[in-house]
């Protein structure tokens, strides 16, 4: 029996080693990033110190040390935020330590990172919390020790009053509205000339993430406004998800001139999003479709592979996405998508450092929309936009 | 009868605390059917397990075809030519007959199994034996009798020289038994040695040539079947000296009221038209051999298994028992023969087990009143003299006898007047046994009534006021303790209808 146990243990160990071997690449990459980061920030700090005597003004900020705890580190999105943070930190001459957990489900690790950050007694902390409840105690500690916290990206939703001095994040409602503006520009003629009902589909995600819901609601509300302004009636399709109907304040009406159909798959996976996207695209009166995050947009791409309906040509369905990633960028470049919205992580990083420095210096700070961009096949290679795109 | 093919001499085997085989001899000749008989627990199965390598022997010799052998697993015995035909067990229900027969040694055609060849070979085998079975039929669709034929065919195909039949007729119909005997006679013609284990006295007389009798793990003797009577065999089987004092007369008053009356109870094959009465203050023994249907009767009575028909009266009133819950409501408690499976929850405490059947009474709002529970558990620990460090002790840490006391406590807490003790002392050491006996006597003295199912003859004779004997699902006898003897009980227990 002992032998058997041993055999089982060894086999498990073997698997673990092998799998760890596969993951090794990732781990190494992480370490290198971190060391360079630290090295860079240290250099920056050193540079700031040497400049101290020469420039008295810089001395005021040179002592500042900022801690930033993000939701991740390796993903290109967070790397883009980090780029913005580093360039702004260098410009302002402050030292920054930027950390994040291995995955967005590793709440425990993030809590520890925040604790370490607090112990470093920084001038201010930037935080994108995975789970507000888990960091509640630490938020209190920060308030007690007078360390201001600035939320970024999705921020710290549901944090107690006063714990977060400001948020630097994409205004998702505004971003959704931007998508609606751009899509509407492409379909306004068709709406105006339509004889019967036309349909605009939205593939969205469920209510667990406020920011993703807002991207959908922003789109729907703005689209409703634009259609109404053009003198047409707008209604929600009856199969639509109740949450979106309520939040957008558009009545259910399958007979309106423009019907908006919102579909929400049961879980966040490509294959489920694809099924819902297919159901929308297959309807004859569909003229536009919008996927409110990477998965939803990917679902539309998968569905279109079989249906071949999306494009900007005559009679084709105008499609738009949100976020970047290899598939969506390819879809935009090849014309399957008319365009997509990207957040501006570089700008977010820059605004974050500015806000943190201001907060550390005791200035009053307020929430900042770090903005978004509509990218198309034409403009996606502009450096200003390309820096926010990643595969 | 031909030459000796198999000799087991002075086989000795002990398990911790039990001397299972005490220098047992057995001799099988070519072309003979040799019966192996004995009461439950006499050691027949253990002996066969030693022979086929499932158990290793402590001492003694096994000689097979003139060579001394010692098998370490059934496969080796099989390869040498000694095969057991079990009652049912060894069938792969989802595979076909031919696939079953050749499992582990399939005919191959390249990389693929040659099912056609296997079907042909199986068919040849059946023709040889005069059996009418389609080799392509799925095993689970066959009757038990046919399945057994397949087992025999499988044994033959292994080139068996000695075949052991372990109670082969237990699950067969009359016609199937006839067919089985035909095959066995055919095998005898072919000079195979056959060991036939059975409780059925009349079968022994019909089919076997010699009988070896075992008792309490020891060898009693070997007889030529045709030269002996049924009574001779029974006497050899039960001829032990009873050391404990048997009860000589019933302790129950002649006019004691009937507390439980069962009429024409039917529940499947194992319970057929069983009727009996239980009086207040009585210990009613249920005797019989393995598979007589005693436990099944009790389970049907208790509502644990469904019954087809039959009436049950408690204190003269007809009751409808559909589930154990109903039985408990009418004051019937059941101490299962398999304590660990049905009686107690081993990883719960003495207190939790004690109140298991009555938890409703120990609730304080939504929660269990721990103190009240402990108090009552302690009370019964004291009454029953259960040896436990405390009522918080997990039952798994108690000895078998004390575990049994916890089960008894459970039903006493429930205030049951009718208690069914199914093999109450199985797996319990001698000291604890007499304590349980003492306890049972006290319980009936207090006016409770007990049904005791037991396979131990001495226990039946020592405890019972009256004895019901069953055989193959039917009641085959009822004896007052005054008239009961081992021989009379065994006679009834082997009575087939």
């Amino acid at each position: 029996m002992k032998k058997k146990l041993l055999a089982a243990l060894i086999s498990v160990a073997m698997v673990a080693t092998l799998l760890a071997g596969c993951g090794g690449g990732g781990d190494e990459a992480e370490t290198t990033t971190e060391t360079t980061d630290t090295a860079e920030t240290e250099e920056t700090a050193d540079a700031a110190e040497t400049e101290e005597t020469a420039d008295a003004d810089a001395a005021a900020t040179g002592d500042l040390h900022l801690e930033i705890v993000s939701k991740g580190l390796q993903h290109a999105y967070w790397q883009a935020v980090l780029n913005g943070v580093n360039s702004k930190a260098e410009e302002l001459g402050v030292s920054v330590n930027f950390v994040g957990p291995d995955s967005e489900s590793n709440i425990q690790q993030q809590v520890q990172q925040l604790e370490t950050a607090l112990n470093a007694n920084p001038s201010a902390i930037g935080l994108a919390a995975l789970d507000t409840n888990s960091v509640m105690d630490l938020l209190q500690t920060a308030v007690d020790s007078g360390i201001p916290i600035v939320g970024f990206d999705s921020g710290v939703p549901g944090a107690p009053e006063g714990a977060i001095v400001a948020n630097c994040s994409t205004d998702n409602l505004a971003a959704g509205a931007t998508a609606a503006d751009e899509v509407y520009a492409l379909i306004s003629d068709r709406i105006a000339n339509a004889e019967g009902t036309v349909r605009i589909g939205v593939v969205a995600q469920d209510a667990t993430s406020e920011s993703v819901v807002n991207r959908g609601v922003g789109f729907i509300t703005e689209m409703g406004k634009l259609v109404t302004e053009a003198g047409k009636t707008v209604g929600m399709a009856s199969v639509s998800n109740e949450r979106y109907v309520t939040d957008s304040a558009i009545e259910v009406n399958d007979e309106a001139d423009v019907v908006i159909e919102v579909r929400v798959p049961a879980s966040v996976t490509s294959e489920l999003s694809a099924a819902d996207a297919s159901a929308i695209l297959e309807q004859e009166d569909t003229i536009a479709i919008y996927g409110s995050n990477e998965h939803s947009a990917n679902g539309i791409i998968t569905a279109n592979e079989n249906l071949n309906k999306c494009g900007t040509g005559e009679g084709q369905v105008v499609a738009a996405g949100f976020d970047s990633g290899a598939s969506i960028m390819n879809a935009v470049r090849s014309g399957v998508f008319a365009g997509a919205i990207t957040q501006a992580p570089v700008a977010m990083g820059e605004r974050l450092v500015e806000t943190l420095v201001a907060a550390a210096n005791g200035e009053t700070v307020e929430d900042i929309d770090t903005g978004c961009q509509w990218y198309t096949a034409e403009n996606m290679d502009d450096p200003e936009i390309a820096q926010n795109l990643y595969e | 009868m031909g030459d000796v093919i198999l000799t087991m001499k002075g086989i000795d085997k002990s398990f911790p605390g039990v001397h299972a085989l005490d220098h047992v001899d057995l001799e099988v000749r070519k072309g003979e059917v040799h019966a192996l008989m004995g009461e439950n627990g006499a050691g027949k199965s253990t002996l066969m397990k030693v022979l086929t390598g499932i158990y290793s022997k402590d001492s003694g010799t096994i000689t097979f075809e003139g060579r001394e052998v010692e098998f370490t697993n059934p496969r080796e015995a099989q390869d040498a030519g000694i095969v057991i035909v079990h009652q049912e067990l060894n069938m792969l229900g989802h595979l076909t007959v031919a696939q079953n027969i050749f499992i582990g040694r399939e005919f191959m055609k390249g990389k693929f199994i040659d099912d056609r060849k296997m079907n042909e070979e199986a068919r040849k085998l059946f023709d040889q034996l005069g059996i009418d079975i389609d080799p392509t039929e799925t095993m689970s669709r066959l009757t038990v009798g046919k399945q057994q034929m397949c087992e025999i065919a499988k044994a033959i195909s292994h080139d068996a020289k000695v075949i052991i039949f372990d109670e082969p007729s237990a699950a067969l119909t009359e016609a199937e038994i006839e067919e089985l005997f035909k095959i066995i006679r055919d095998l005898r013609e072919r000079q195979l040695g056959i060991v036939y284990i059975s409780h059925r006295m009349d079968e022994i007389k019909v089919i076997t040539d010699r009988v070896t009798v075992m008792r309490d793990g020891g060898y009693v003797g070997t007889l030529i079947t045709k030269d002996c009577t049924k009574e001779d065999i029974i006497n050899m089987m039960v001829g032990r000296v009873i050391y404990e004092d048997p009860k000589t007369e019933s302790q129950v008053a002649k006019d004691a009221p009937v507390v439980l009356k069962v009429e024409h109870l039917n529940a499947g094959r194992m319970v057929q038209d069983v009727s009996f009465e239980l009086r207040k203050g009585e210990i009613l023994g249920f005797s019989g051999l393995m598979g007589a249907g005693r436990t099944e009767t009790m389970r049907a009575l208790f509502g644990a298994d469904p019954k087809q028909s039959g009436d049950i009266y408690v204190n003269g009133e007809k009751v409808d028992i559909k589930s154990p819950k109903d039985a408990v409501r009418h004051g019937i408690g059941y101490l299962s023969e398999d304590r660990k499976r049905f009686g107690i929850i081993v990883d719960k405490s003495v207190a939790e087990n004690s109140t298991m059947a009555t938890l409703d009474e120990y609730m304080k709002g939504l929660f269990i009143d721990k103190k009240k529970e402990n108090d009552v558990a302690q009370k019964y620990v004291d009454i029953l003299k259960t040896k436990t460090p405390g009522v918080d002790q997990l039952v798994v840490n108690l000895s078998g006898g004390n575990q049994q006391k916890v089960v008894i406590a459970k039903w006493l807490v429930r205030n049951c007047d009718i208690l069914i003790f199914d093999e109450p002392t199985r797996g319990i050491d001698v000291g604890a046994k007499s304590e349980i006996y003492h306890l049972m006597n006290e319980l009936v003295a207090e006016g409770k009534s007990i049904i005791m199912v037991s396979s131990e003859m001495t226990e039946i004779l020592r405890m019972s006021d009256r004895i019901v004997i069953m055989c193959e699902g039917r009641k085959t006898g009822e004896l007052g303790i005054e008239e009961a003897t081992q021989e009379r009980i065994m006679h009834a227990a082997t009575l087939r209808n």
Partner: protein
Amino acid sequence: MTNKKKGNAFTNNPIVRAIGVQKIVVVVVLILLLVFFSVKSTSFWSYASLLSIMDYTYYLAFLGIGVTFCLITGGVDLSIGTGMFCYALAGGFLITKMDLPVIVGILVTLAMGIVVGLANGLIVSKGGHAPFLATLCTMMIVRGLGAIITGGSSITWPIAGTPEGWTRNLFKFTLPSGTKVPLGFLWVLLAAIIMSLFLNKTRPGRYIIAIGSNKEATRLSGINVAKYQTLAYLICGFFTGLAALAYSSAFQSMTPGGGGGVELNAIGGAIIGGTSMSGGSGTIAGTILGVFIMSILQTGLPKVGLQANYQQIIIGVVLLVAVYIDVLKNKKLS
């Protein structure tokens, strides 16, 4: 009573018995579903729908074939859903983030499946752990692993049209005319035929069935039970790897931590197809049919205007019915 007799006449028909009652019922249900969806949704009866049904069929079929082997031994593998995601994430990570050749990614994907399958098999057969618990644990492990390997980001395998995107063409081939051919069905069919032969015509297959039918009797027949039990899980792992390739070819992206629940669709497909939860019986053909039911439901339900959460309920009820039928069958057997 008359009803029962009728049933017997039907079930005793030699043609019916050769195909299997359950499979005939499944085909009938399949046709009914197709008719229902075609009537309820104008867009269902189309070539695009077929392509979309196929997208779901590929990975579910591979998972289903694999897990059928575990189910037949009387076990189960719950790690296949999250496992599929994990292996696809790892393989895709190597290709797109580490810039390794596509073939390396494919091999690693398959190897991971085999290794985890082997581990499951050893834990169950040698360690003697209940398959349900053992594979539940590996399910947690591979879920975490997928996230660690990719650093928490979602992964997209090389997209169609790029030189590295040839894996996608293996499953959905685009003709010069632009028509897409569901080539993957060929591979599913091929795998089904090979594994069906393996299960019914070779010794290991026979012993895997025997183990599920009566493990003790199989052991007493002198068969190395642990070896064949392990083999069943290893096969399951390998097919999970194949499913990972199919999934990453059919769909755009995988998110770490995903794939939970997919195993139930595959296991459900197998059970609908007549594989017994208690082991001993099951066919690959049945599993493929059962998987079709699942993928048709997944494609069809959104088209008839049902919201996602209601779809889940319907699929759950379908699985419950399948399990109930399995329980009834077993009761009849005993």
